[in-house]
């Protein structure tokens, strides 16, 4: 029984890795600029924001939930953090304000889902609109530009030639994978997604666990926002539109099921990399913007099709 499960998981992770390598080989054969150290680092850097959001999204989706508010939370926390920074508040304190705000929005999402009994899709859809509105009214629709250098360093420096944001995202995934595989919290998250009724009957802290995944999603969205702001030297109330969909795409391309209980962070990071690779390739190969979207959609659908076939085969 566990044997088949393992084979299935291995097959899927392996399949995704092979797909990435094949795609990379194909792109390298078309354009010699693709497989350069500079471009690979560039690609990793561009994947970080989506990967960071998608890490939180994975946890939420594992509990059979969804968080549509991440793009708006990213914008709201970004403009507030940038504004606090412009007031001259020290960088760590300003960042803490942003994380706190992200955690608070996540807490509200979680409580609405667990205590308010509103389906996650609707709760976070409402929060998506609300947080976007708050971001717009907080700034009057204008960007917050010109931030202190110590903050910008988060997005613009490199450690051992690898951009700092890539290290941050790697750290998040290392911790996240540990939490999911080695802690009781991780087991609870999978259990709730597999069968919420059984989890409750078995006495698992369903509500606390559910709230905590939304809080983590909110915090990670605010972190992603800070990375973006540090790279741009500007926070904008309209940033992060559609990011929730990119994150969901990365999670499902990574092999998670929207029905919960199934999926891994290592799959999600590969999903985020595939998405970044395609966006990068479109620019490098100068593919017409009209076809670009066709290509992106086709890649997502074929990845899902492969997962679906793999699931059927191993069952």
């Amino acid at each position, binding site marked *: 029984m566990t044997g088949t499960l393992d084979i299935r998981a291995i097959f899927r992770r392996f399949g995704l890795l092979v797909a990435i390598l094949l795609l990379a080989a194909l792109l390298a054969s078309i*354009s010699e*600029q693709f497989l*350069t150290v*500079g*471009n690979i680092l*560039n690609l990793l*850097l*561009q994947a970080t924001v989506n990967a960071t959001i998608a890490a939180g999204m994975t946890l939420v989706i594992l509990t059979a939930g969804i968080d549509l508010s991440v793009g708006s939370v990213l914008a709201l926390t970004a403009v507030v953090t940038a504004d606090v920074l412009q007031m001259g508040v020290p960088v760590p304190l300003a960042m803490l304000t942003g994380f706190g705000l992200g955690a608070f929005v996540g807490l509200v999402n979680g409580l609405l889902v667990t205590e308010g009994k509103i389906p996650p899709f609707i709760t976070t859809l409402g929060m998506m609109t609300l947080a976007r509105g708050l971001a717009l009214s907080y700034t009057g629709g*204008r*960007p917050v*530009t010109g931030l202190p250098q110590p903050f910008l360093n988060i997005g*613009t420096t490199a450690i051992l030639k690898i951009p700092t944001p890539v290290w941050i995202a790697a750290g998040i995934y290392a911790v996240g994978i540990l939490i999911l595989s080695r802690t009781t919290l991780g087991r609870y998250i999978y259990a709730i997604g597999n069968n919420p009724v059984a989890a409750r009957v078995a006495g698992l802290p369903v509500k606390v666990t559910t709230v905590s995944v939304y809080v983590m999603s909110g915090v990670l969205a605010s972190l992603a926002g800070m990375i*973006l702001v540090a*790279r*741009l*030297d*500007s926070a*904008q109330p*309209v*940033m992060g*539109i559609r990011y929730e969909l990119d994150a969901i795409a990365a999670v499902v391309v990574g092999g998670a099921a929207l029905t919960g209980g199934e999926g891994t962070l290592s799959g999600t990071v590969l999903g985020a990399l595939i998405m970044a690779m395609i*966006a*990068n390739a*479109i*620019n*490098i*190969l*100068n593919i*017409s*913007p*009209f076809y*670009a*979207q066709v290509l992106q959609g086709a890649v997502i659908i074929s990845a899902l099709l492969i997962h679906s076939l793999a699931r059927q085969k191993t069952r």
Partner: protein
Amino acid sequence: MRRMTVLIVSLMLVFAGPLFAGGQAEEGEEADGFVLGLSVSTLNNPFFVTLRDGAESAAEEMGVELVVVDSQDDASRESSNVQDLIQRGVDALLINPTDSDAVVPSVQRANEQDIPVFTIDRGSEGGEVVSHIASDNVAGGEMAAEHLIELIGGSGSVVELQGIPGTSAARDRGEGFNNIVGENDEVEIVAAQAADFNRTEGLNVFQNILQAESEIDGVFAHNDEMVLGAIQAAESAERAEDIAFVGFDAVDDAVQAVEDGRLDATVAQQPALMGELGVETAMAYLQDESVDESIPVPLQLVTPDNVDEF
């Protein structure tokens, strides 16, 4: 009882007052010439305040009365404002709609009363409009292209960062740019990619293009947000010095960037001229001159030489 009578009489006076006032206005109108109504989408935005100022000064110069109402970006307020202007008996309506769809009933109401309608900046999706007065985005794209070619010394490789595919601004600005660059054999567009009018996308997309192209002399973006992102990308790749950047819209951040010498130029709309042309077109029509259906308003280039004026 007496109190009641006083109340009733005063109420009657209050309600009858506007009637007399209305009558007077009509007499005055015949004596002094035409009355134009201008409905502005919002006076909370400096762009539209400048537009109104332009219309007012043109009206003053021509000796016509201009009644201005502010919709405060609220379509229902706009509808009742336009209704008020129609009641007032204006000879022509200049509408700067809050929304191209929401304004349609107002335009139709004016059509029923045979009041000619002119739209400014935003158009109307329905009803009969005599002329639409708006910025000429194609000419703006051409202007940007000519300036960019000049900046790179007449020849070289340029990149076009496009707006959201399918939007009219992206189409028109791109068309203008390609009209000029396409005819020039010395200048090659090495990449034309969409960055969706968005600063983050501008950063990411241009970062990728920088990887692909070792030689880039100039960048034209369909709006300032994208060009500001591209500048950020070029600066972190330490290639900003070698590349000329031209944006579009002259938003505050872009004007600041021109002042700081990071952005070479941006194309500005001329809201005052828009208001002025609106009044002039309406007056021409009222005096039985023929007017075009579309009145393009020229744009202006913001460069380090004239940035102080913006």
